[in-house]
């Protein structure tokens, strides 16, 4: 653990922001740090805290420094404060300040808006660690356990990154908000996390993979749009976070893929070709494809809710202010001001789903969600190729964006996965066909037995094709401390 009194911030907290000479931030961080360590220690079961985990640590932002692998106990992980290198003469990329030099300090008029965005982003980072805290107990392999912990420590680092911004640029308010990030807690009755999806349980490993595939992908989209920010420190922070977020997507996509792979292999071996022969498939100790589809339906739709209302004043204000851009803002061929443009947005009129053109500025959330849907479709295609290759007739699908929604225009209507508006009764009747049931959950839970031998994997998941850091198949990714 860090020796807080004699801490050498430059050596123990990897950073490229001159931390050791920044008295203001150091003072704030000294106060915040013990709370963070307590939060971490109370979170993940103690025997994992004591275990040596083969983790990647970012010690600098250049290609040599951002991926140092070594064994480390998680509480001793070197969470760093790293910003992507400054771009010379960077300009604001959108909104009414388009073309003006990017801000190196917070503009007073946008202070609250910026702070709110950073707090909301920051709140999601520890939230997911909280949701996943007990998964180590049922890890299907040491490889997966290591990936889980890698994701966890990086979410922790992302929290640090947001806390740094709050403490560095937002004065006393910022310090208080940083403290509150450790007060709120996922699923807490006392002080829940700000966004709904981060208060849902992550009860099993398939949920974890779905979460990292779908929900972390929302995080990626949010980071992408904050990376466009005219507030340069935020932009640089997010750009660096994105390199780590990519690993989370990888864990999700390969995790679901390996689950499917195990199912396909078991079906082939048992000579089962009908993917809906659920009981027989389950008897093989693998998860049937229809249940995987249900899990997908759940996590995809919870993640769509994270994009907020389709038409949003806050998003419009943030874009126009130059605080938050669109996905790949620089590559979009328009005036980047959007004051006279429109964008098609779904709406419900007289019980029908329509699209309407609305002022593009107000449709920033909708546009980001559209980009997300395209981005999320990629992995589905790759999973379907695996299924087709195994000769099974089944296709995983993203349900219609109106299905199972709590936020936005669809929250008031019942929509089936194919996009038909149905009655609430009809929807309730068919819910069990579309979303995981308690029985599905119990079945998946029954498969969640830990597999702690190096190189071995639980029945329901296939080994990865390649090890982390090119390590061999029987590499001991976690040296478990079994007190």
């Amino acid at each position, binding site marked *: 653990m860090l020796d807080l009194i004699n801490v050498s911030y430059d050596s123990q907290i990897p950073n490229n922001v001159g931390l050791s000479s920044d008295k203001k931030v150091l003072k704030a961080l000294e106060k915040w740090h013990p709370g963070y360590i307590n939060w971490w220690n109370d979170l993940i079961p103690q025997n994992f805290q004591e275990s040596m985990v083969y983790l990647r640590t970012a010690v600098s932002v250049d290609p040599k420094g951002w991926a140092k692998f070594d064994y480390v106990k998680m509480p001793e992980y070197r969470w760093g404060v790293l910003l992507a290198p400054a771009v010379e003469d960077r300009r604001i990329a959108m909104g009414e300040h388009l073309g003006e030099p990017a801000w190196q300090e917070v503009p007073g008029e946008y202070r609250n808006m910026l702070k709110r965005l950073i707090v909301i982003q920051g709140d999601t980072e520890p939230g997911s660690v909280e949701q996943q805290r007990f998964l180590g107990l049922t890890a299907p392999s040491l490889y997966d356990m290591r990936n889980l912990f890698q994701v966890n420590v990086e979410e922790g680092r992302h929290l640090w990154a947001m806390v740094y911004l709050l403490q560095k640029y937002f004065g006393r308010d910022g310090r208080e908000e940083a403290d*509150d990030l450790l007060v709120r807690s996922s699923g807490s*009755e006392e*002080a829940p996390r700000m966004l709904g999806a981060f208060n849902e349980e992550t009860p099993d490993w398939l949920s974890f993979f779905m979460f990292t595939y779908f929900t972390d992908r929302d995080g990626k989209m949010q980071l992408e749009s904050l990376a466009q920010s005219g507030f340069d420190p935020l932009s640089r922070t997010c750009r660096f976070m994105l390199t780590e977020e990519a690993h989370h997507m990888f864990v999700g996509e390969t995790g679901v893929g390996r689950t499917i792979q195990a199912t396909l292999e078991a079906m082939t071996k048992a000579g089962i070709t009908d993917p809906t022969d659920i009981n027989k498939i389950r008897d093989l100790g693998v998860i049937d494809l229809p249940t995987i589809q249900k899990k997908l339906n759940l996590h995809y739709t919870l993640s769509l809710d994270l994009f907020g209302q389709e038409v949003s*004043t806050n998003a*419009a204000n943030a874009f126009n202010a130059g605080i938050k851009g669109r996905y790949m803002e620089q590559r979009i061929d328009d005036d980047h001001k*959007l004051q006279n443009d429109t964008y098609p947005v779904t709406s419900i009129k007289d019980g029908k789903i329509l699209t309407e053109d609305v*002022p593009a500025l*107000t449709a920033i959330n909708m546009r980001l969600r559209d980009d997300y849907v395209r981005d999320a479709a990629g992995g589905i295609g790759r999973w379907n190729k695996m299924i087709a290759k195994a000769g099974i007739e089944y296709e995983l699908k993203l349900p219609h964006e109106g299905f199972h929604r709590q936020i936005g225009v669809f929250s008031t209507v019942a929509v089936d996965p194919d996009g038909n508006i149905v009655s609430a009764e009809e929807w309730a009747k068919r819910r069990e066909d579309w979303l995981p049931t308690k029985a599905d959950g119990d079945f998946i839970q029954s498969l969640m037995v830990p597999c702690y031998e190096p190189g071995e994997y639980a029945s329901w998941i296939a080994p990865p094709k390649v090890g982390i850091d090119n390590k061999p198949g029987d590499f001991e990714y976690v040296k478990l401390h079994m007190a």
Partner: protein
Amino acid sequence: MSKRIDFQVDPAGMKHWTVEHDGPVAYLYMDVDEDAGLFEGYQLKLNSYDLGVDIELADVVQRMRFEHPEVKVVVLTSAKDKVFCAGANIRMLGSASHAHKVNFCKFTNETRNTLEAALEDSGQNYICAVRGACAGGGYELALACNHIMLTDDSTSSVALPEVPLLAVLPGTGGLTRVTDKRKVRRDLADVFCSVEEGVKGKRAQEWRLVDEVIPNSQFDAGVRARAEAFAATSRKPDVTQGIELKPLQRQFLADAVIYSTIDVALDRPGRRAVITIKGPETDAPADVAALTAEGSETWMLRCARELDDAILHLRTNEDALGLIEFQTAGDPARVVAHEALLLAHADHWLANEVLCLWKRVLKRVDMTSRSLVAMVEHGSCYAGVLAELLWSVDRSYMMLEPFEEDDRPLASVQLTDANFGQYRMGNGLSRLETRFLGAPDDIAGLRAQIGTPLDAAKAETLGLVTYAYDDIDWEDEIRLFREERASFSPDAMTGMEANLRFAGPETMETRIFGRLTAWQNWIFQRPNAVGPEGALQRYGTGVRGVFDMQRV
């Protein structure tokens, strides 16, 4: 916005509020139906409100007093998950005419005042439980309650974001109640009113913005316990049974509105409305049992409700009629008798409620931005409660001596005890005290006149009416007054009358209407808020308002 806005509510058809009764505690849930706005073009998202939502609230508050006198504590809270109330709907405000905005704010202010009056007059205590965002008009709603509880979930806050977000004021009492009622230190109030996201948790309590902060997991139980404790220590007498407020009998005709006790004649070419109040046609109820049996049909209550509705109708739906003339017709002795029963039993809950309703209705008259005049003709019944109208209006004219071919009883004015403090104005004084601010000794002299019908000469000498004219002068003088009044600028009239009506001390109420509202109405006219590039107009587009930076 040309359809008629109706201020009467069918409680079975409420769209935005629900009430749950638990003995002496009632839970009033705000649950705004976002698709049930009064007009097209906006959705009432996040428990935001428009006039329609407030009309229902006013009705709930009114019914709580008459229909549920057993209720001692009302807990105002939200039925929505993550939001208490987002305040007045901005798109509605952005698209509304100036006149509608002003009327909207006046009515919502009057409704907030009735929440406070419920405690002061009847011991019915409104308290507020805030979970989720509570911003702008949402916090103003909370401010109108007498005890504010906020959950400590590290997210829920109270806020007045009007200035930074919309370039207007928290005009529904917000600024005034923060300093005058909550007694928030002025510099902290300045900070609070400048930050969009507001203040949460312990700090909200330290700054006096809320009364208590309750851990989130104990919030519901804490609110319940607090409500029950307030109910247990309430000084409100136990009453088991209320009365039903039956629907008003009304008829809307092309140039008139006819109620059971009131006729409103609409003279559109002359830009005036004549409200004729008809005195009781039957004797006063013999006792409070008879009064209760008559319920909402008893003349004093029926007339008050009808007058209230008529005033609201004229204010909102007839904005070209710049002059409202009051007339009364009937037997003054009967008016006195009906009122006397209530005064004699002012400790009876229903008698008290009716008298307090009259207080509110007369305040509504005071606050009406039209030229008001009372005509005291022969056959009229300006006695007791109806005599208050004489000092609510800007001027009054009284018929002097018999008129040719007019065999109605001679005009008189009759004072009762009630004229000396029963129906206090917003400034805390009776209308007579306000009228005779420069000659307080005259009030004692007036007391000696209680019970005596005062003829025109006497009434004029005592200063109770402006002019007394005989039948030679009457018609011409009245015509001249009407024509002169009609020629003045309506804006100047509104401003002049509002200034002259409220002499005497400032109260929170007068500060809200006279200071906050006036400033708000000024801002509502300025381009920084409502110009094509103003913040209110641009809200929701993502583009910021452009301000003229000159300080005026």
